């Protein structure tokens, strides 16, 4: 067998020596590599959970921390009232000022409009013919227009309802008629004023007026500001209504017919 130039024994020895000298270093290297790979693995596992948590916090921050933040703001405001007032005052002051200016502008426009209307030639001419009615009456009438809410035509002695008109929704008109008659009788009897009748009852925004005719009386409930002009007009209309009923007694036995007459004379007219 031919010998080679390579001394195998010598090479092996070198390898063995290398093994002996570098074993520790290799182990450390292996350990470090494992640790590094482990971290990557953990990161891979943890990252989605952390991302999910961050997204949840972004989306539901008020739910998670709202109470605590509110509480801490409250404490902060309570403990630093002067600073808060100092910070808000310029903003609030400006808002209030802006609102007042806007309202005063509106009021000025309204006053100008009213003055222009009242002193126009047409109005001056109207005022010459209207008698005692004052400008205050006109303004009140425009703002709080009187409205007939209820009308009851009632048998004077029986208290039975003969006909009615109602803007609202009274549950038992018969009962109301009876009670009105009782109250009327009671008041007239209690004050013992021979030949005098209870005419008006006022409650809050309502005025109840009762007008007596032969065998019937008519009660009207009115809301709004009742001016003398409205009262006169209502009185005229009530007289017309009573006259028609008493001239044609069929109205007393035909509720629907009477209801229509009431509406025609007092409401639609």
């Amino acid at each position, binding site marked *: 067998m031919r010998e080679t130039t390579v001394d195998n024994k010598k090479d092996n020895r070198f390898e063995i020596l290398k093994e002996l000298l570098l074993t520790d270093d290799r182990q450390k290297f292996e350990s470090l590599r494992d640790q590094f790979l482990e971290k990557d693995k953990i990161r891979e596992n943890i990252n989605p959970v952390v991302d999910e948590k961050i997204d949840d916090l972004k989306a539901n921050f008020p739910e998670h921390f709202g109470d605590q933040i509110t509480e801490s703001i409250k404490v902060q405001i309570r403990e630093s009232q002067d600073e808060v007032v100092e910070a808000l005052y310029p903003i609030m002051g400006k808002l209030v000022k802006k609102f007042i200016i806007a309202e005063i502008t509106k009021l000025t426009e309204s006053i100008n409009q009213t003055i222009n209307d009242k002193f126009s030639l047409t109005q001056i001419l109207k005022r010459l013919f209207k008698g005692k009615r004052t400008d205050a009456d006109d303004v009140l009438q425009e703002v709080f227009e009187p409205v007939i809410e209820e009308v009851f035509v009632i048998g004077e002695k029986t*208290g*039975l309802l003969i006909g009615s008109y109602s803007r609202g929704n009274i549950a038992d008109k018969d*009962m109301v008629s*009876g009670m009105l*008659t009782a109250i009327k009788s009671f008041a007239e009897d209690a004050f013992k004023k021979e030949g005098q009748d209870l005419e008006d009852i006022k409650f809050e925004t309502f005025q109840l007026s009762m007008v007596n005719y032969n065998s019937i009386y008519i009660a009207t409930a009115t809301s709004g500001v009742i001016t003398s002009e409205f009262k006169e007009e209502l009185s005229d209309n009530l007289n017309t209504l009573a006259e028609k009923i008493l001239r044609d007694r069929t109205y007393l036995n035909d509720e629907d017919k009477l209801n229509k007459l009431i509406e025609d004379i007092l409401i639609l007219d």
Partner: protein
Amino acid sequence: MIAKKVLLIGSFGVGKTSLVRRFVLNEFSENYISTIGVRISTKTVAIEDEEVKLMIWDVAGTSEEENVPKAYFLGSSAAMYVFDLSREETYLNLDKEIESIKNLSGLDEVIIVGNKRDLLSDDEIFEIRKIVPVTIDFITSAKENANVEGAFNLLTQQSLK
């Protein structure tokens, strides 16, 4: 529908309001409510193929001392006088009271009702019938709902006369 005003008269505490409550609402309240002046209730009754809307004026008392406005009695079509079987003072002057009601209302007839029969025995009621100066039309009990319907039916019938 015909509407009729009917009267229910009698002293304080005889049970008029309880009778009305029993008739109108078909119930009885243990709570005693003293009537002041007048209380008005309505009830529609079908009688002899006719629907009648009763306006029941529950009037407390009749005499001058009780100061009931005379106008309460006007325009009524029928009247029922109620007394308390258990209280003598409510029926001793019954004849005078009835006469006064007839004068005030212009009615010829007044139905006489003795109420609170649940408080008395049959013998006691028999004795009262002998003392009372007028004929008692009905002995009722609002509490036990005895004869209430009958009394009001007669009242309705009289209102149609």
